[in-house]
């Protein structure tokens, strides 16, 4: 166990938490018919295709943050060095890439009369930060302090 977090891991841990919190806030907002409705990343049956797709980005962030948190703070918990032949730097890179790409795809997608809510912006920034954190780990930008 190593309680000192490297900058790359601080970025990933923070971004993962922000991603999770953002997923419970408003992802899309719809104003019309004399009222306003909000939909989070966990909203099902809204017809906007958020749950299931945005959830993949959330899960990526949670797995990345959990790995960093467990290896840093959890006493006696041993995380395998590799999963399916992939080292954790590679896993972070793959999951960070997926999280960022998914959120950027939501940004680029035509949303019609919907507006992005605070939760979406949290998740978008967190997705990009996860990717940046993963790149920092791979390139060694601050990865050796942990």
């Amino acid at each position, binding site marked *: 166990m190593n309680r000192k977090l490297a900058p790359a891991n601080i970025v990933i841990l923070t971004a993962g938490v922000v991603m999770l919190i953002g997923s419970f806030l408003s992802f899309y907002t719809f104003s019309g018919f004399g009222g306003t409705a909000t939909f989070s990343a966990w909203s099902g049956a809204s017809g*906007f295709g958020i749950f*299931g797709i945005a959830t993949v980005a959330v899960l990526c962030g949670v797995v990345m943050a959990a790995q960093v948190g467990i290896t840093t703070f959890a006493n006696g918990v041993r995380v395998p060095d590799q999963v*399916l*032949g992939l080292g954790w730097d590679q896993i972070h*890179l*793959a999951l960070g890439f997926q999280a960022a*790409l998914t959120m950027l795809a939501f940004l680029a*997608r*035509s949303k019609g009369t919907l507006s992005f809510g605070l939760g979406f912006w949290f998740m978008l920034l967190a997705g990009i930060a996860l990717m940046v954190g993963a790149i920092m780990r*791979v390139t060694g930008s601050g990865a050796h302090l942990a």
Partner: protein
Amino acid sequence: MDGNKSPTPAELTILIAGAVMLVGSFFDFAGSANAWGKYLFPLATLLPLYGVIMALEVGLTKFANMRLPPQVAGFTWEQVHLVLGILAGFMAVGWLITDISHKGFGFWLEVLGGIAIAAGAVSLQRERNTGAIG
């Protein structure tokens, strides 16, 4: 690559699944919109994109004898297949449980292709003895 032009079962799975996902992306995905249409592009396009990358790598190295760089961003091609395949599988399941109405023929081709390509990527690890599986 061993120079044998006959694709292995895993490679064949990846080739077919990638082609099915590409073709499926032009059929109705949700309502009357395909994966390249308004409200779906580029979100629904990621799935066929992953499939096409994987199928292209297999096709180019197997049939065109093209020599690609051994690694991409620190990943061997087997690892690229594994990562993209698993992510494609997750996205396919994600689309499967999402709440879009009127799931079209293209939707089902993409979802089934995504699951098949994940299976192909896992199987490829065994065939090439990467040690990633078992």
